[in-house]
């Protein structure tokens, strides 16, 4: 609206049908009344400002020439030079493909398996048994990623148990960690091992909220166990499924940077190197900060677009969304 008005800014949040709520205070009044509350927010806000929003601004070095130790925001503008550079970089496209492949595989396994495990757990009638399985399956979630990497390396090493098994069947031992062909399998299966149990928590909670009358009615209608699961249980946990799917899609390209960094080696770069590990090597190890920042910004923007896209898609298709 272009017409100049002297009226105070209109609040957009207040629904007009709640006249009993106190009128919106001006900032001056609010500050005078709640200054103690606001003062509690000062340090956290400083944290967000410095350690979350300043780095977002810091991305301008993707458009500027940055010299380590020089001006924090770079020396001079170079426009889209670094973006053109990585779009023309064959290694970038290779790591981008790897990211998409590993991300897709992870989504394909790490999203449905917790649902299946939750459904199976839900059928266990013995309380202590159910609790025991849950407790055990959550355990890997509590470990440091370094410990997990150590466990993986020990398990698949030449003298590890998997090769013991192979030898028992008369096969030659495989140096899994040096074979590009095995990296994705290792990555995804260890990801499943680590996350599947923990992933069941929200589904199990959702399962307990399903109205048991629905099951009775389904049984009256002649539905067997399987049909009950299909027509009552699954629709019952659908909102949870969609929420977690959106979150999973949003982080789909942010594949486990730390784990890959710990597990890969130059021999497996072909299949293991992902965008984030590549930009780590380009930026931190080789010192091309501006170039790496351009790659990182590109990655973050894709991530943001994925969350927003998945959210609006699910709002339109399924009627549920995160916001």
């Amino acid at each position, binding site marked *: 609206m272009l017409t100049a008005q002297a009226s105070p800014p209109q609040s957009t*949040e207040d629904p007009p049908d709640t006249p009993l709520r*106190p009128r*919106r205070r001006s900032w001056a009044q*609010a500050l005078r009344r709640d200054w103690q*509350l606001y003062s*509690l*927010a000062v340090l*956290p*806000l400083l*944290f*967000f400002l410095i*350690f*979350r*929003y300043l*780095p*977002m*601004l*810091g*991305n301008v*070095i993707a458009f500027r020439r940055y010299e380590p130790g020089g001006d*924090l925001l770079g020396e001079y503008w170079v426009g889209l030079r670094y973006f053109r550079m990585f779009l023309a970089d064959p290694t970038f496209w290779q790591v981008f493909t790897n990211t998409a492949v590993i991300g897709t595989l992870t989504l394909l396994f790490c999203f449905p398996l917790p649902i299946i495990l939750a459904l199976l757990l839900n*059928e*266990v009638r013995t309380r202590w048994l159910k609790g025991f*399985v849950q*407790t*055990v399956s959550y*355990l*890997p979630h*509590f470990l*440091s*990623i*370094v*410990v997990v990497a*150590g*466990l*993986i*390396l*020990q*398990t698949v090493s*030449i*003298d*590890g148990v998997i090769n*013991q098994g192979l030898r028992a069947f008369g096969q030659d*031992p495989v140096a899994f960690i040096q074979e590009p062909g095995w990296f994705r399998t290792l990555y995804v299966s260890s990801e499943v*091992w680590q996350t*599947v149990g923990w992933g069941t*928590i*929200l589904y199990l909670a959702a399962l307990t909220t399903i109205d048991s009358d629905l099951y009775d009615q389904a049984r009256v209608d002649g539905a067997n*166990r399987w049909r009950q699961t299909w027509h009552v249980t699954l629709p019952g946990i659908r909102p949870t499924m969609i929420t977690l799917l959106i979150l999973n899609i949003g982080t789909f390209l942010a594949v486990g940077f730390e784990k890959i960094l710990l597990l890969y080696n130059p021999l497996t770069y072909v299949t293991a190197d992902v965008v984030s590990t590549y*930009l780590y090597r380009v*930026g*931190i190890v080789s010192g091309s*900060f501006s170039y*790496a*920042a351009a790659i*990182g910004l590109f*990655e*973050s923007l894709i991530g*943001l677009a994925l969350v*927003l896209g998945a959210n609006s898609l699910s709002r339109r298709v399924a009627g549920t969304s995160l916001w």
Partner: protein
Amino acid sequence: MVGVTRGYRVFQLVNGFVLTLVVLVTLFPFVNIVARSFSGEQEIRSGQVSIWPKGFNLTTYERVMSDAMFWTNYRNTVFYTVVATAIALVLTTCYAYVLSKRNLKGRGLLVGIAVFTMFFNGGLIPNYVLVSSLGLRNTLWAIVLPNAISVFNLLVMKAFFESLPVELEEAAAVDGTGTYGTLLRIVLPLSKAVLATMLLFYAVSFWNSWFAGFLYMDRQELFPVTVYLRNLIAGATSGTDNTATSEAALQIAASIQAVTIVLIMLPIMLVYPFIQRYFVSGVMLGAVKG
């Protein structure tokens, strides 16, 4: 229940089998690593160790535990975890309490500032440049400050504070207690459960973290023990004496790695059975708003 069909009984059997398999597969790597940690190097090298130690001995434990650097780094981890958790807990509590005040002007903005960072972040390079140019390298603050508030934990706490009865605080306000007094004397004593949960969330995540230490610390005596382990599995250090020949270093690597892994897991494994349910309740609390 009436009418348990044969098909369902078969399903229960299969289900029991599948879940047993899940338990075994989950536990196997732990059992294996413990077995390796107590085994002789020769037996590990020749691929004999699976779930039971072969050539039982404690020499590797002695060797790792007599490594001064291991203990220095272990102490660092304890120290970093304590300081970082304390600071994170205070900041998160303050902000969550502010966010839980429904009538506060600007609340939506304050929530938005936090939540937006869940979906978009500056990325590795700008963070690295920032932390470096703030002069935080090789200090504890490089680990503490950039991770001082986890937005997920913040939302869990906010949900908890919102669930407290408003009347209590109003009564306190009528009695003339200020905001600080209400928070300290009324709200926090009622929030012991969520405080414990947050304490565990933060403590476990700081205990487990390695990347900040790896990225921002160049001096070995400042590393957290997770970086010690990462250098061990990356082959960057041999664990004990650097004078040994590379062949010998390779020879001792497997059992030393196993012992180090066990020693780093140990504290978590010991408290795990007691803290597990707090984690579950915390996750549920965070999900309530979803």
